[in-house]
């Protein structure tokens, strides 16, 4: 059966988003979630990255430093690192196709209108966000007349990301 798991990893995850996401998903093993969100846990003076995921299987055998718990449902806001249809969206796809073929409900441009036929270069890294209960992918203008997600898998880090 499926249930929502919320966990705060004990180990720091480093600076690179793609790397941190991979660690989070790996830490959920043996579960392979169908939906997973990162959220920021501000309940302590030092904020922590947390993960809330829809998983299937028994409720034991978790790593994550033992700080996992069952919650009632998805977070109110969150950054989606795993969603149905994600694996097929690695290249350049029309915005309409992204909505039609995945859990993404809307592709929204930052300061630019998006038509269903507009092409999005996904860079194999889609991180839609949960906004008012809807999964929205924010995109921006990119070189070559296409759009790209506003989040990069590996943004430039100055001085090792201090």
């Amino acid at each position, binding site marked *: 059966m499926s249930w929502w798991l919320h966990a705060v990893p004990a180990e720091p995850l480093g600076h690179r988003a793609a790397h941190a996401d991979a660690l989070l998903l790996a830490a959920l093993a043996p579960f392979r979630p169908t939906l997973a969100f990162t959220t*920021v846990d501000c309940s302590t003076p030092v*904020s922590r990255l947390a993960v809330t995921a829809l998983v299937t299987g028994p409720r034991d055998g978790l790593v994550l430093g033992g700080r996992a718990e069952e919650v009632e449902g998805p977070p109110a806001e969150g950054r989606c690192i795993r969603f149905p249809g994600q694996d097929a969206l690695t290249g350049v796809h029309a915005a309409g196709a992204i909505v039609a073929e995945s859990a993404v409900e809307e592709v929204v441009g930052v300061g630019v209108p998006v038509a269903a036929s507009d092409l999005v270069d996904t860079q194999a890294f889609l991180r839609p966000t949960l906004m008012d209960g809807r999964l929205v992918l924010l995109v*921006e203008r*990119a*070189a070559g007349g296409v759009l*790209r997600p*506003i989040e990069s898998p590996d943004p*430039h880090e100055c*001085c090792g990301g*201090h």
Partner: protein
Amino acid sequence: MSHDHDHHHHEAAEWHEDEDDRPLSVARRRFLAGLGIAAAGTTALAGPAAAHEDRRPVNPWGARDRWFAGDHHIHTKYSPDGQYEVAQQVAKAREHGLDWVVITDHGGVAHQKFSVDLVAPDIEKARAQHRGTLVYQGLEWNIPGAEHATVFLPPGRSTVDILRAFEAAYDGGVLSTPVDRGGKGLIARATSADGEPYALAALRYLEAQVLSGRTEIALMFANHPARRGVDSPHEIRGWRDAAPGVAVGMEGAPGHQAAGLATGRAGARGFYEASPNQDSFPGYAPTATENPYRTYGGFDWMTAKVGGLWDSLLAEGRPWWVTATSDSHQNHLDTFAPGTGDHNTTGTRGAPVDTGKPQVYGDYWPGFYSSTLVGAASRSYVDVMRGLQGGKVLAVHGRLVDGLDLRVRSDLDGRGVTVGGRTFVTRGADVEVTIEVRLAMRPNFGGSIPRLAKVDLIGGPVTGPTADRDSFSAPHTSVLKTFEVARTARGTVRFTHTFRNVDNAFYLRLRGSDGNRLTSDGGPVMDVVGDADPWTDLWFYANPVFIDVV
């Protein structure tokens, strides 16, 4: 301690002098800041409330100042991600017309242990070799709980000692590195919120060095403030209030301006390609209308957005200045690559290696594209720093302007004040603004003569300290007037504007553009990642003038 308004200026000076690093002092400052008293209770750079008591105009027009071009953000082989010799950077800065430079290698365990002492003799040598160019020793400080910042001092007997002690006690990298790796292990991450009190203590430490006479002046500018969203509005206000003589501004435009070239790194202009992380201020959120994590016309969103964060500070009457720097680490099409030294264990990457082949990098040499013009009476270390402290500062890209003469006059101040200044008008009287701009006559380093297409006069009411320390909007600030520059204009162009029947305190500031990339309302366009040619999108920003009504 009384909170009587008539006396708070005097009392502010008292607790200001008492500043030290004791926790009590942190708590007291927070208490005062919460009441909005700290904002007005500054000393030399008094807010409008204090100005009522002392009606001397600040930054009078017509002083015998000259513009001195410089750059407060330059790296060398003493940064783990830098590569150049100090001598190379200084020689190139000079070649590109800079009068002053600040060497700012990254703070951290190895830098504090080795580099801060290694760089000092190199700087001395560069000063001797290039008399006439001011070379300051500084630090790119990891502000605990926030972004990076330039910290620097004029040359003096205690300069290196102060920088070394400052870095040991207050650098976010040193504080967050575990003890077994040579750090202090006192905060979780360089940018986590548990670092915030250390940042305030750090700035008060610098101010204490000035007050005790160990250095004549010390300055801090927040670098690339919106890049990762970790400089929250309350932190910026906190820095300013903690040490108003030291924490005076931020990079209006970050460096790395070559990073967006389609023919180069094809990254984001300024390397502004991040998105929110766990330490980002939640209010800085990308939406359908804006992305705070990108540059706009090469400038940081906090500065570029009219009615945005910068304006929210100015609308409080809070002096806060903007600059433009190179953040030079590795310069586009230069042939050098990093040396083979181990920075971690020696504090230097060693002499850079000439590959003989132009390399694709994201930065420009100091002075090649970005300059911070400072109005100062002389080319001296302290005078240039006083100009920066007083906001006589223009942030310029691609030599769009070589200088600017702003004069703001009123019935009470016939001489008037200039950029960064403060003046007074009788309620109901007029304020006259005169702007003279010398148009560029020579090509810039992009190879063309930049053409100024327009100057915007921006302004809004000064409404005093805000109750919400995390406010980052000034809804009543707007572009008040746009002056077009005729295509045929040569030499100097002159514009005037009169504010009639002024009945409320206000501020004004200027920005100018080459007109190549404008939104429908005349503002800068969000830079496109991988396709941002900085030479075809030039802007300048001038710092504000405050006008009080009496």
